[in-house]
């Protein structure tokens, strides 16, 4: 019978394992949050900041592994099923590397060859107060542009 076979198949589970994985996931999340709080005080561009972000990504992958392997039971399925799911998803390795590299390269190209882009990204936005509406911000913008133009004219 189909369902009796199913019963034996899921011997790998059990409440003990569920509790164990819950604790692991909670601890990983807590560590992620601790790193996030730590990162707040860091300078914007620093190697340490990048390293912490890398650590957070590794923790994220670990969490994903525990959810898929234990909560979604993939670890206790047979190899054929694991492969038919995991192998196509490995396409993401190329996907992520290629697209992020492309984005980064595009930024470099624009900063090198597009002075307008470079200049736009150095203009300080007007400091706005808490809870101000959208329109006021838009009002402030043209004024600033005029000021910029004056500077250029001078």
């Amino acid at each position: 019978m189909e369902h009796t076979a199913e019963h034996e198949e899921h011997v790998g589970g059990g409440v003990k394992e569920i509790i164990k994985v819950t604790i692991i996931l909670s601890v990983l999340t807590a560590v992620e949050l601790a790193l996030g709080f730590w990162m707040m005080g860091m300078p914007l561009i620093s190697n340490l900041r990048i390293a912490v972000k890398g650590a957070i990504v590794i923790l994220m992958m670990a969490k994903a592994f525990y959810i898929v392997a234990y909560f979604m039971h993939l670890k206790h399925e047979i190899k054929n099923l694991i492969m038919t799911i995991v192998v196509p998803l490995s396409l993401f390795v190329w996907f992520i590397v290629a697209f992020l590299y492309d984005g980064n390269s595009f930024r470099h190209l624009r900063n090198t060859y597009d002075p307008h882009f470079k200049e736009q990204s150095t203009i300080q936005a007007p400091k706005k107060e808490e809870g101000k509406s959208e329109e006021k911000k838009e009002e402030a913008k043209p004024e600033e542009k005029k000021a910029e133009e004056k500077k250029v004219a001078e």
Partner: protein
Amino acid sequence: MSTTTVTPTKLWSGGKSPFNVEYGKLMMWYFLMSDAFTFGAFLISYGTIRFSTNGWPNPNEVFRSYPFAGENANAPLVFVSIMTFILIISSVTMVLAVHAGHNMDKRKVAINLALTILGGLAFLSCQAWEWNHLHNEGAWWGHNPFNNHDGTASSTNFTNYFFTITGFHGFHVFSGVIINIIMLIMTLTDKFEKRGHYLMIEKAGLYWHFVDLVWVFVFTCFYLI
């Protein structure tokens, strides 16, 4: 039937599923795989745009409020960590429901499913509050009131991606809650008892865990990094 003793030749010689799961569950896995690519495409697109821009808003400045906090709340990561834990715990109750289903324990299935639905609704309420809060601050598709990290003016990419991706995830949570409610009704009306198995709960469970899985990525990409 033990999975370790089955040799590949026997598996593929016909007469039984070579994946050793029933049809519906296998198709749920394939659906989730396609969904993973959809979410992956969204998040990678977000990453690409972020990598190609010089400045980006600081999530710790944008997401720093929580309900009943007033105007000047400054508690980054606090509210979103609560949301994350809600989703993790609802995933755990879902596993417990599936586990109870294996033991044909109708009462436990119903209790854990109800808890999962509550968790899902709690998460959706949190998200509704956060969207409403950001909207009141002037953030929406096409509107970005937040400046970049370094004080320069930001494009609307940040809010566009935030609302699109968390919206798409929230829609998944919403449909997951609906599916779980249907499962709860079917459990309470003894549908699964008559059928002799609770395999349907497993499929709903796979979907629910996937929603939790996606949140792991969304949470990291938008709030932490």
